């Protein structure tokens, strides 16, 4: 029996993957889905803040030092320009924010009364807050020196020189925000789930295609039993599913370099369990369809809506409560929930309930399909 299964598997794989369209369908589309997901949910990286500076305080040392300080900040790209240019660049979106050091800026700092500075942006406080905080901190320090030195210029110079060369200084360390990357990888898994399900139906559909071209019955008139034949199809399906998972994760982690926020092992386990469910669903689709066209229609009726309702495309949090309740009955939701928990630091062991549920879903679909297959007794198409 094992030899027969292997023979059927090799033949099916050979026939399937000699077509370029199969490579696109089983591997190209999931990768494209991940790419789309990264584009849709992208923007979670650390782009440079484009800052324009108008130094209206001429060649004053304090103003020049301020410009230098801003330029030395991490994640900032500084460009000096005049007031007109700044307005234009901000309006056209080429700059995120602009700083205007007006005449008297340096004198204000020297006298301990900071002022003559303005921050402009067309993008709001979210963009200006960082620059504003750094600038305030710097100005507060200088003006404090100015107040202490009073009118004593040599004392100011000494204190200021000490400040500039101080051992202590503000070190800006950027804490990476991985929530966006997590969201991207979460939605990428959503796309992968959908493609796994459609791929599974496509492969199981071969049973129907073989019925349509009558080879199924020719196979059954050989020593191969219907059980052996269907088992070979299931194994082919599982092999392709696993390969699909590996390719998708490879692209997700190593090509698109997304921080998925979890280890690969647990991901493989959860997706591996879901592949059983996918194959189970695909067999149910095939068992209840009379031909491949019917299976295609049933696939559209099942896969897309359930993926949508379970949050594969749109985060479940933004959906109404009623939809969330429906999602509880969909296996895709339990995969996504498992990933969410893994991203939050949960161990694989703590997800035993989710894994049991996924296994139960798979088992249920396999049982339904085998019951239905057992009742199919239609040989009319053969002889």
């Amino acid at each position, binding site marked *: 029996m094992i*030899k*027969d299964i292997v*023979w*059927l598997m090799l*033949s099916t794989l050979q*026939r399937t993957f*000699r*077509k370029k369209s199969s490579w696109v369908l089983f591997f190209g589309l999931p990768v494209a889905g991940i790419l789309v997901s990264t584009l849709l949910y992208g923007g979670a990286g650390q782009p440079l803040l484009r800052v324009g500076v108008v130094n209206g305080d001429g060649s004053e040392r304090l103003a020049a030092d301020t410009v230098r300080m801003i330029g030395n900040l991490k994640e900032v790209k500084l460009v000096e320009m005049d007031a007109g240019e700044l307005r234009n660049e901000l309006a056209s979106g080429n700059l995120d924010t602009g700083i205007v050091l007006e005449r008297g800026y340096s004198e204000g700092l020297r006298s301990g009364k900071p002022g003559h500075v303005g921050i402009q942006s067309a993008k709001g406080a979210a963009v200006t807050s960082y620059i504003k905080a750094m600038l305030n901190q710097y100005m507060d320090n200088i003006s404090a020196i100015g107040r202490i030195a009073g009118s004593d210029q040599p004392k100011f110079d000494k204190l200021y020189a000490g400040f500039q060369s101080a051992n202590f200084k503000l070190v800006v360390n950027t804490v990476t925000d991985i929530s966006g990357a997590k969201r991207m990888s979460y939605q990428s898994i959503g796309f992968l789930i959908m493609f796994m399900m459609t791929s599974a139906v496509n492969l199981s559909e071969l049973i129907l295609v073989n019925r349509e*071209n*009558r*080879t199924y*019955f*020719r*196979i*059954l*008139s*050989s*020593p*191969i039993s219907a059980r052996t034949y269907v088992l070979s199809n299931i194994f082919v399906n599982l092999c392709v599913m696993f390969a699909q998972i590996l390719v998708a994760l490879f692209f997700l982690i190593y090509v698109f370099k997304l921080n998925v926020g979890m280890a690969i092992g647990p991901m493989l386990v959860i997706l591996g369990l879901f592949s059983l469910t996918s194959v189970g669903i695909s067999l149910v689709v095939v068992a209840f369809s009379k031909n491949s066209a019917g299976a295609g229609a049933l696939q559209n009726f099942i896969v897309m809506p359930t993926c949508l309702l379970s949050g594969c495309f749109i985060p479940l949090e933004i959906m109404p409560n009623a939809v969330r309740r429906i999602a509880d009955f969909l296996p895709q939701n339990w995969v996504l929930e498992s990933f969410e928990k893994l991203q939050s630091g949960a161990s694989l062991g703590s997800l035993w309930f989710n894994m049991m549920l996924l296994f139960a879903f798979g088992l249920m679909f396999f049982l339904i399909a085998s019951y239905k297959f057992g009742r199919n*007794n239609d*040989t009319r*198409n*053969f*002889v």
Partner: protein
Amino acid sequence: MNVLEIRGLTKKFGNFIAVDNMSLTIGEGEIFGFLGANGAGKSTTINMISSLLRPTSGEIKILDKDIAKMSRFAKLNLGIVPQDLAIYEDMTAYENVSFFGGLYGLRGAELKARTEEALEFVGLADKVKGYPKNFSGGMKRRLNIACALAHKPKLIIMDEPTVGIDPQSRNYILNSVRKLNEDGCTIIYTSHYMEEVEEICSRIAIVDHGKIIAEGTKEQLTATITDVKDIRIEVKSLVEVAEDQLRLIPGVRTVKLDDHEPVIRIHSDAAVDNLNRILKQLMDSGAEIRAVEEQEPNLETVFLTLTGRNLRD
């Protein structure tokens, strides 16, 4: 040794009895013609012999082994050539035969040799790398046969292997059937072409309503028809022929107008002298008679007499 033995075979679909207590024995080296109109029960019988359908009751033995108990053995010795093509269009001729041969446990050099042999046998040795989608109807039919031969079965069931093909391919297939038989294969052959069955079959069974109603050699079957005469009348045109009026003539059993030529075939009781009345009826209706011939009963006469139907009905 009997290659196929059927005892009391019955298949019911709900209240409908497709095969009704059928019994049949086919010996080694026979080409056995299995004749029946559509719905007569021959396909259901073949499906049960192929283990695709489970009988409601009865027993089928292949090479003296009960297929219910030794299904694998039976299948290993059975080759099926289905009426509808059962080949993969996206596999080459070689891959098709090799794949189906592999289902019977053939591997490696043996599979390669048997595949080449089967393709050679059906005259496709030069098309091993060709795809069936590029084949003619006759070539596809031959490939369909080759797929059933690689494992060298003792019993081959051929269901309408010559449907819809050119005369050249048809002759090739008929010669192949004879050659297979000479090589020791037992063949069950079904066809809608009565002349094919007459030409190649050593024994024939006529099936109707799920039962075998006659069985024997062609000579034995035609010899049973002693009370029927077969009258062939050629006319200028069939337009003037009043078919219903001909049926009313005493002794006339069936009247058939040929689809292809202006010929009327009348089966009539041999004991009733009605030829003059038949001819008078035709002339009265305006038909111009060209020729009249009273023929010896043939297989078609037998079939028509026994079933009341044409084979192609």
